[in-house]
């Protein structure tokens, strides 16, 4: 996954330690979000979200829709600014090769996002589904599960 060079998101600066945007950057992002929010509902529907992500990244349609479903965890068919902000932070951390740092700093929100069925467990399949977003290698995933799966039920 790559951000389109010269796009608006490309100019945002992600703090390398906290993996967050500055207040000024968040304000700018909010203005950007409001420009895209044409129906004035403080949300983006799937069509707008797809065209936004398709425009600023090289992700394909299935990948974009997987992300949309992940962010729209309560299935309202729209995503708000909170989710949008988190997505932008994930994209920027990927762009800056800070995925590990991002997961370390925001482990709980990341866990909640990846825990699709809400049973407080992330399966190997769930993680494989999103490895394009967090850039987790297959071998690393296997090792991770081997080390932490103490109950042996995967």
């Amino acid at each position, binding site marked *: 996954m790559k951000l389109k060079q*010269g796009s608006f998101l490309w100019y945002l600066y992600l703090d390398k330690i906290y993996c967050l945007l500055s207040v000024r950057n968040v*304000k700018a992002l909010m203005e950007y979000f409001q*420009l*895209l929010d044409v129906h004035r509902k403080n949300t983006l529907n799937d069509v707008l979200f797809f065209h936004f992500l398709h425009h600023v990244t090289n992700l394909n349609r299935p990948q974009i829709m997987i992300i949309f479903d992940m962010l729209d965890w309560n299935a309202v068919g729209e995503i708000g600014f909170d989710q949008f902000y988190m997505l932008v932070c994930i994209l920027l951390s990927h762009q800056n090769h800070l995925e590990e740092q991002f997961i370390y700093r925001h482990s709980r929100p990341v866990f909640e996002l990846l825990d699709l069925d809400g049973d407080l467990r992330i399966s190997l399949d769930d993680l494989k589904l999103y490895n394009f977003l967090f850039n987790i290698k297959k071998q690393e995933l296997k090792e991770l599960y081997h080390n932490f799966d103490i109950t042996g039920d995967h």
Partner: protein
Amino acid sequence: MEEKPSKASGESLVHHGSEESHQQSDIRKLWTTATLSQMNLNLPLSKVEEWSDTDGSSFCHQKSGVDPGDNNFKQELDEHTLSKLELHRGRSLGSNLEERESRTEAEKSSSMSSLSILKQTPHRAYWAEQQNRLPLPLTELMENEAVEILTKALQSYRSGIGKDHFLTKQLQRSIEGLKKRRNKRLHVS
């Protein structure tokens, strides 16, 4: 016979008290103006005191409405008060000429420095606005990108829900609004 001196001392006390309170308030006011008009706040204390002293004398005369050259003002005060005032004002109650000079100098310096501050530092509201506003190139980039994304979304809307749907119309209106805003800015610059 005995009452007179006590009365006189009472008067002097009243005079002294009122004068002192006047001077205290004067000094306090001038202290703030003096610090405001200074560009460099790390000045030595002696220098600041010197400034406030000269300013203090000029302000006192202005407020009392008496010309510095008028001797009636001095005659009204008894010796005790005068000596106290002497202590406070220091050399400022010396010759009238010196006093006038120092007053004009102080006024000049304060007005000059406040003018230079006005020229150098922008107004607070202007500064806040500058801090809160996005840089113009970034705003332009943002709007151009939004127009591109929304135009693509409009095509999807038209093919998906039809061109007469209110959501399609709403989207079209917002694209037109963005384009208008962009053209306006282009014409201004």
